[in-house]
């Protein structure tokens, strides 16, 4: 909004607290956005905090799209597949960045900051500057005090550093 971009974000409510899969379509554009839903095969990025869930939305991913996914499975179903096979499938499916989010979150100061680690890891692919994202994080956690703000900024930076390092190694 602050950058003058058009925004649409569609989400499925109501199922998360009962353990169901939750998806959200985020569209950012300098042009007017019509559809709230991303067309199949047109998503630039799948950002997932769970590896199998990243694969669920592959039909939406553009041919040159990118998957950024946390590697820690949420195994709340009896038939959860083998984790290594899931990760291997991601590697075969698209450009990807797999993030062990939890250790990075703990390194930042809280195991609960995994989502912000993932945002950091996805940040090189968002088309929004680091400064803007960090300012938004600071504002989002402002009410909870400096300590929480700094912890989340750390989490963001650790995720981002990993993404940049991986990107350089792959070149």
């Amino acid at each position, binding site marked *: 909004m602050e950058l003058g971009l058009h925004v649409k974000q569609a989400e499925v*409510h*109501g199922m998360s607290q009962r353990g169901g899969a939750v998806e959200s379509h985020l569209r950012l554009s300098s*042009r*007017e956005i019509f559809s*709230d839903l991303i*067309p199949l*095969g047109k998503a630039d990025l799948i950002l997932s905090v769970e590896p199998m869930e990243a*694969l669920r939305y*592959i039909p939406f991913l553009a041919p040159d799209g990118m998957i950024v996914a946390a590697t820690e499975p949420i195994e709340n179903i009896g038939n959860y597949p083998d984790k290594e*096979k899931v990760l291997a499938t991601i590697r075969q499916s698209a450009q990807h960045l797999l993030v062990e989010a939890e250790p990075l979150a703990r390194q930042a100061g809280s195991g609960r900051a995994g989502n912000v680690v993932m945002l950091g890891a996805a940040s090189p692919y968002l088309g929004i500057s680091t400064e803007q994202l960090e300012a938004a994080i600071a504002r989002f956690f402002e009410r909870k005090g400096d300590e929480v703000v700094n912890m989340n900024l750390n989490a963001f930076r650790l995720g981002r550093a990993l993404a940049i390092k991986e990107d350089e190694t792959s070149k």
Partner: protein
Amino acid sequence: MTKLLLGAEAIAQGALDAGISGVYAYPGTPSTEITEFIQRAQRDPGKAVRSAWSTNEKTALEAALGMSYAGKRSLVCMKHVGLNVAADPFMNASITGVHGGLTIVVADDPSMHSSQNEQDSRVYGKFAMIPVLEPANQQEAYEMTRYAFEMSEKSRLPVMLRVPTRLSHSRSTVKRGEPKGQNPLNPSTGKGQWVLLPANARGNYQRLLEKQEELVALAESSPFNWVKEWNEGETDHDRETNPVGTSNRDGKTDQGGTTTQVSNDIIDGVTNGITGVIAFGIGYNYVMEVIRAYNLPVEVLKIGAYPLPRNLVSRFIEKHNTLLIVEEGYPVYEELLKGYRGDDALRGRLDGTLPRTGELSPGLLAKALGVETAEPNAMPAIVKGRPPMLCPGCGHRDLFHALNEVMRSYPNHRVFGDIGCYTLGALPPFNAIHTCVDMGAAITMAKGAADAGMRPALCVIGDSTFTHSGITGLLDAVNDRSPLTVIISDNETTAMTGGQDSAGTGRFRDICRGIGVEEKHIRTVVPLKRNHEENVKVIREELEYEGVSVIIAQRECVQTAKRKRKKE
């Protein structure tokens, strides 16, 4: 002032800025967030808008009508199936008409993301012969809500605002207008208007019929109905919006009837021969997405305000040889426009150009307009389903375990169920309930089955569902002395929709006693693992009683408890 809002929140903001004095609603996906937004806004001092939850949609709509009678503006919100519950006041409020502006928001759920059907509320709007507004985006949701109140007071009719899940639950930027103050208390002095005795009702109905022409005229010139002409190479066109009915438009409204024929020959095979699209509500977004992505030479008539603007539609249809009708929901207007003889030049959901059921998408519109898109990659086979399930530690779980143990003694048993989190008890690993039809039906269906001789006749209903529509059914059972056991699974909240207040919390014993259930057959159990044996015993005892018994299985929802702990 620009804000990032859900479609539902844009409606709520629009209603607040339109100067409502009250919102009345029963929670229901995807409408819940409207009322919740208004409840949160009550923290602002000096904005006294009445906003607590109603017991059901019927009580909500009637109260809103009463507020309108008193001269103030009121909002009522519900999901599509909630309108079935409120259908009686809904149909009759169009006969009485209104005094203060009354807007009825109905959130439809195409594809049944969280519902038992995908009924299209526009049919109800037509049935009641009231104006219906259908926004395509969050800004329109805001503007139309404000406009709805103006229109309601002008036409003296309730106005329906219909939104689908996809708009209600999607965020975008919304530019607010200047807020309006509330109406003063000014009760209606109309006499016959509000007393629907046949003699009065006949007159009112006649006046409603006479108003129809005026409503069509309003729709013809509505700021929400317009033609988006095709401009080759036009890929971007940002719409500057001004709040409330004065919005600029992308295209010019085809008011004068002088139009240019769109040439058919350049596009044959590119758009399936379709040169014109009539897009209703959010359908417009998917059409525009495709037209812009593939630069298709197609003209669009966008409809956001009903009744159907006849002249606008006729002129548009005459201009095009082949048209696509795009409706999110039932093919309501496609059926009307195609007519009994079935005009082949009108494509849509009825001839398979678009699917007959389910939500629209850019992909479906691309296909309908003849665009060959690359087949998307398939979801890898390794991905397993992750269905929703009862939370770990949920009291419903312990109840179902106890229930299942008892029911093992009754081969081929059936248990009547209802709507709420506990409907998940129909799925493995519980397989404990066998019906889920509509709010309150657990009790009345079990009663009917008991009357037919089924033993044991047993049902499970949630606390909020019980107060919503279960009490009257229980009274029927008491009056009829039906051998029936009702388990009220009381988690002290309306959990399914996110933990809203439940109307009868703390009073279920009293309610059941008041209806006439015998004191000794109103039992209370706490569904916990450690109480398993005792709970099994209580259920067994009451199943053996040849009369009405109620078991209140009472334990706070684990999610509510978690939220409370977080707050402390």
